[in-house]
C-alpha cells in the first residue's frame, strides 16, 4: 500500500524530500515504518529520537497504518 509521508526538520535533510508517496506492506505498523527508514537511512539511528504522527496525532509503535492516513516523521522538536 501507499502512504503519504510528510517530512520535517532534519528528516527532510536525510531523505531529501518534504513529501513522498511511500510504498509499504499492508498492515504495517509504525514500528515497521521506523525500522524500514532506519535500515534504508542509517542517519535516523543517530537522532536523539524520532516519532511518527498519524493524522496529526502522536501514535505508538503498535499503531497499524492505513492507506488513507497522513503520516509524518517528527524528529526531535525544538520550538520556543
Amino acid at each position, binding site marked *: 500500500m501507499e502512504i503519504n509521508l*510528510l517530512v*520535517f*526538520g*532534519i528528516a527532510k*535533510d536525510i531523505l531529501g524530500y518534504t513529501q513522498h508517496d511511500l510504498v509499504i506492506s499492508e498492515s504495517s505498523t509504525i514500528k515497521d515504518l521506523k525500522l524500514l527508514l532506519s535500515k534504508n537511512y542509517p542517519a535516523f539511528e*543517530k*537522532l*536523539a529520537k524520532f516519532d511518527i*504522527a498519524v493524522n*496529526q*496525532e*502522536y501514535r505508538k509503535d503498535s499503531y497499524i497504518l492505513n492507506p488513507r492516513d497522513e503520516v*509524518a516523521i*517528527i*524528529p*526531535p*522538536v*525544538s*520550538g*520556543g
Partner: protein
Amino acid sequence: MVDIRLTDQLLSSKVCEQFIQDDKAGGHVIFIGTVRNHTSNRNVLHLEFEAYAPMAKKEMEKIATSALSKYDVLHVAIHHRTGKLEIGEIPVIIGVSSAHRKAAFEACEYCIDTLKERVPIWKKEYFENGEVWVAAHP
C-alpha cells in the same frame, strides 16, 4: 478562553495581553522568548523555524486547554512564529491571566515547557561556518 496563533508575522506582547485581559484577573504573566546571539561558544547569526502547522496548532491548543483545567487560570494565549528570525526577535509568547498570581506563573511555565517537548516546530541555528537543527542529535 484560549488563543492560539502560528504565524510568519511579528508577534506582539500587546496583542497577547489584550486577549488575556479580564476584570476578574489579579495579574498577567507573560513569557516572551527571544532569539539569543550564541549557543555554547558559537555566535548565532539568525534562526529559522519550521512547523508542521496543522498539528502544531492542535498541540498548542491541547496545551492551552490542559493548562486551563490543571490550574486556576482565566485565559491562556500561545503565539508562535515561523520563518527566519534575527537576534532579539520573538519566536514565542505565552500569556496567562488568573485571579491569583501563583496559578498564572505555574500555568505559564507548564505551557512553555510542554510546548518545547511536544509541539512539532523545529529550529535551525545558522552560524558563520555552518548550520544545525537544534536538539536533533543526543
